């Protein structure tokens, strides 16, 4: 065991190796690692941001749905109200129309009855006059006996 020229050679090799490592090995590997760390950090931040945005969007969608639901139920209420109103209105209109028709019909009936009664009366008066003239054997002057006939007609 002794110290010899190997020492010097080894020191030169070592110095060269350290220089090489410093220049061509350490920087590229460390840069790659740092770059990857940066990328991963970015990715994580983006994921977090995306998650946050997603939950925001979900909240927003929920709010929109809630509002739509409220509006829909409001519209349904309104529609129900309107339908009820319409039905009420129609009912009212129908009953007044019915009453009117009824009144008109009753009036018509009254009119017809009066007219029929008048016609019947005339006919009865005619028959009565005919019968009387036959009974009396002479002609009854309608004109001279108009008052009598009218009185008669009124009595029938």
């Amino acid at each position: 065991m002794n110290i010899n020229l190997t020492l010097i050679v080894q020191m030169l090799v070592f110095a060269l190796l350290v220089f090489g490592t410093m220049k061509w090995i350490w920087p590229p590997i460390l840069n790659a690692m740092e770059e990857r760390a940066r990328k991963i950090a970015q990715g994580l931040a983006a994921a977090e941001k995306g998650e946050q945005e997603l939950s925001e969007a979900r909240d927003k969608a929920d709010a929109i749905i809630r509002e739509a639901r409220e509006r829909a139920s409001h519209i349904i209420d309104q529609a129900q109200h309107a339908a009820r109103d319409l039905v009420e209105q129609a009912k009212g209109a129908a009953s007044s129309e019915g009453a009117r028709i009824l009144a008109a019909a009753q009036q018509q009936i009254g009119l017809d009855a009066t007219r029929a009664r008048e016609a019947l009366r005339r006919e009865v008066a005619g028959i009565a006059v005919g019968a009387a003239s036959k009974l009396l054997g002479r002609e009854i002057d309608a004109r001279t006996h108009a008052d009598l006939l009218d009185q008669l007609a009124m009595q029938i």
Partner: protein
Amino acid sequence: MAAENAPGATEYILHHQTFLSNKAPHGIIDFSVINYDTVFFSVLLALVFFGLFRWVARRATTGVPALTQNIIEWIVEKVDEQVRDTFHGTSRLIAPLALTIFCWVFLFNFMDLVPVDLLPAAAHGAGLGHLKVVPSTDLNATFALSLTVFILIIFYSLKMKGPIGFISELTLQPFSARNKLVQALLVPVNFLLESVTFLARPISLSLRLYGNLYAGEMIFLLIAVLTLSRGFHALTSIGGWLGILGQFLLGFIWTGFHILIITIQAFIFAVLTVVYLSMAHEHH
């Protein structure tokens, strides 16, 4: 059994402790000698490290990473975290330095898990007498790392604190006094203490790594001695079979432990480097 193999075992272990070098060294320090095996394997492992990491770095995607990129990025991230925890200044050097040390030292140590005789035997077949495959069992390799770190410590200390700040850090603590005369007397004491602390850093760094791996390799060698020079004769006796079984079990268990040791040693070397350099950066 051990007794009859004793001479063979010594030769075997000494053979494994010998480097493939240009010539036999004289004395403890001899700069005319070079260990070809250490240089070869450390350069090879440097290329493995650099090739793999460069391959990943070139095709690094910022999207979903594939398995290899994932593993490499995991290592890089752990080193980066460690450096950020310990070192609070800004430096483009320290994190890559820590990564290089961890990976390179880990690969050095990993060679210890390759069966001890495999590569030396292959080398023997290729005509090479000796081969040590674990660079971190060579003091030259561990001191090369720690001395380079030591030079960086001095460089950063001077850069961040200035020469005066650096010298005062070495001489004005831990003992200080209001009285100028007393302070002047304390300076040598402080300097002695701080120099020991300061110089202990590179020495402890390299010796810790060397010691752990040397011991680990030695235990593999001792386990291998169980069936040494018995060859196929081992299959003909119960003792031989016990030896084979013992070698297998002990080798298996020790490899399991050693996986932890080699990783921890690489980690300690890298972390202490970062700690020392951050101490050099900080003002007191």
